[in-house]
């Protein structure tokens, strides 16, 4: 009943555990080289090169290291990780084992968002099977001296915990408030130990990269954004669901694929992403142009963009951890501004002030959530001023 539409995914064609087998042959340095060569960047949205992350973590000197799978998928419009964890969880666990070999970590944690509690039972069963098959445990995968275990820990309904340092805070039993970086988790992570935090999708791709080779992966996409990516598509289109597409695809091409060509705008990257108007549909979805964790929300011709701005701001006001002022006070002020626009009571001068406040939130907030919390509002104001200003109550 809850299955999302998804067709022709590479994940379906991957031979189970072939990636792991190759990883065993390659050894620690070989795995990191293969991952680095593939050019894969974090699929959660921040886009940090996975190979670099692992290299830093592998270099850290500490007998206790952690590999954490970030399954706190909370970005509005994203659901690809749910699909992966439902249908391809073994690829994720395989990716975690490969990561553990690469950085030499004895402990793995899957941090699953509280909203996905219904996935836990199935995942625990799969982990149990892996322990029985000796893929996990002492001398895991038949490798002398390689001890690795994975446990599942649950979130409790906080969007900000998808930010890696907030996630670690939460695991440590604290409020999910992001930390200052540096130090980075690769040096000082969970309980002070070096920790690599990777997105669910990144880890699944790692298994594919090891299985099919780095050049297979990097032949897709652009030079700076290699590889394939899963997109969660929703909103006003004929075929919402999960799509596997190469990075570098234009918004227009994606819309053809999903049956949303008459869209007036598309939100790429969820509440923290940006709103792309029809005039800019030739832009590329890639780290160098429009970066994204995969959330694509299509707005048909009839949508009121002020509703969109309001919904996203309400989301940010609710989910801000409240730790730093620009995000805590700035977003409610923007939301009040939206209300003024709705009532047709916002002067052009005040709207400019709101835009400037948005800029302040972007540069003065501590974490990724804060820095990107005003993005949706700002891009909607930039592109849809005509629609927002001079409203008479009750219109639109």
């Amino acid at each position, binding site marked *: *009943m*809850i299955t*999302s*539409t998804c067709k022709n995914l590479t994940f379906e064609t991957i031979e189970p555990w072939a990636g792991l087998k190759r990883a065993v042959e390659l050894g620690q340095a070989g795995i990191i080289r293969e991952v680095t060569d593939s050019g894969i960047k974090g699929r959660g949205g921040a886009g940090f090169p996975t190979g670099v992350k692992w290299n830093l973590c592998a270099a850290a000197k500490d007998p206790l290291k952690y590999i954490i799978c970030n399954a706190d*998928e*909370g*970005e*509005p*419009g*994203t*659901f690809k*990780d*749910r699909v992966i964890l439902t249908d391809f969880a073994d690829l994720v666990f395989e990716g975690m084992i490969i990561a553990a070999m690469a950085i030499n970590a004895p402990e793995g944690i899957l941090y699953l*968002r*509280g*909203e*996905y*509690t*219904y996935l836990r039972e199935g995942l625990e069963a799969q982990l149990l099977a892996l322990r029985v098959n000796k893929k996990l445990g002492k001398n895991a995968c038949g490798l002398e001296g390689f001890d690795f275990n994975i446990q599942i*820990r*649950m*979130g*409790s*309904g*906080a*969007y900000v915990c998808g930010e890696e340092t907030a996630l670690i805070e*939460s*695991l*440590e*039993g*604290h*409020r*999910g408030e992001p930390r200052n970086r540096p130090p980075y988790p690769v040096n000082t992570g*969970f*309980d002070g130990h070096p920790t690599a935090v990777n997105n669910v999708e990144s880890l699944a791709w790692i298994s594919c990269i090891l299985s099919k080779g780095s050049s297979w992966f990097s032949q897709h996409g652009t030079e700076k954004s290699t590889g394939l990516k899963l997109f*969660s*598509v*929703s*909103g*006003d289109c004929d075929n*919402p*669901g*999960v799509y596997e597409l190469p990075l570098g695809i234009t918004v227009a091409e994606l819309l053809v694929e999903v049956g949303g060509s008459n869209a007036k705008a598309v*939100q790429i990257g*969820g*509440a923290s992403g940006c709103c792309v108007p029809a005039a800019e549909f030739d832009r590329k979805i890639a780290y160098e142009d429009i970066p994204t964790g995969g*959330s694509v*929300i299509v707005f048909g011709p009839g*949508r009121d963009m002020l*509703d*969109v701005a309001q*919904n*996203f701001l*309400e*989301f940010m006001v*609710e*989910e801000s*951890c409240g730790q730093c002022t620009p995000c805590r006070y700035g977003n409610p002020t923007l939301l009040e501004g939206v209300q003024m626009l709705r009532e047709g009571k916002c002067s052009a001068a005040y709207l400019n002030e709101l835009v400037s406040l948005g800029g302040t939130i972007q540069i003065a907030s501590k974490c990724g959530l804060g820095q990107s919390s005003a993005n949706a509002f700002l891009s909607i104001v930039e592109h849809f001023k005509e629609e927002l200003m001079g409203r008479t109550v009750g219109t639109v």
Partner: protein
Amino acid sequence: MNLMTQQERLRGELEELVERLGTERNALMPILQEVQRKYYRIDDYSIQVIADLLDIHPVEVHAVVSFYSFLDFKPKGRFVIRLCRTLCCDMAGKDRVARQLCNDLGIQFGETTPDGKFTLEYANCIGMCDQGPAMLVNDHVYTRVTPEMVNKIIESCRQVFGLHATQQPMEHKS
């Protein structure tokens, strides 16, 4: 004969829980999640006992409970209904589902029915954006909810009471 007070019994249960999950600070979230699941709330007394067992100040525990939207000081209903209010579900018509939920339960969002059976809340994006409007009833997810379905879902929850069943509603076939 010594009668055990309710607090003494609760303390015993919490001690067992902490023994099972650990006295390290990093065991706090699993402990609180379990307390919430079992008692539908995390009250002041539990906070004090957990703080003592973990050897931290109770305000540390309080701060954590207040941060997470799935942890609560106030008692929640046996069934917590969380309707997604984020954009895609909103665009798919969550307002009408919300209205019907209020009508059928006789409460507003943020409230619990007087019989303690249902709590009605909004949730932020629950990852069902392609199948909205969506909602969680405890750990069970319902997608493409229509106002008409609301009553059936609530009734399937009600059937659980009186049986020795768990707190999971029956699978709803749409």
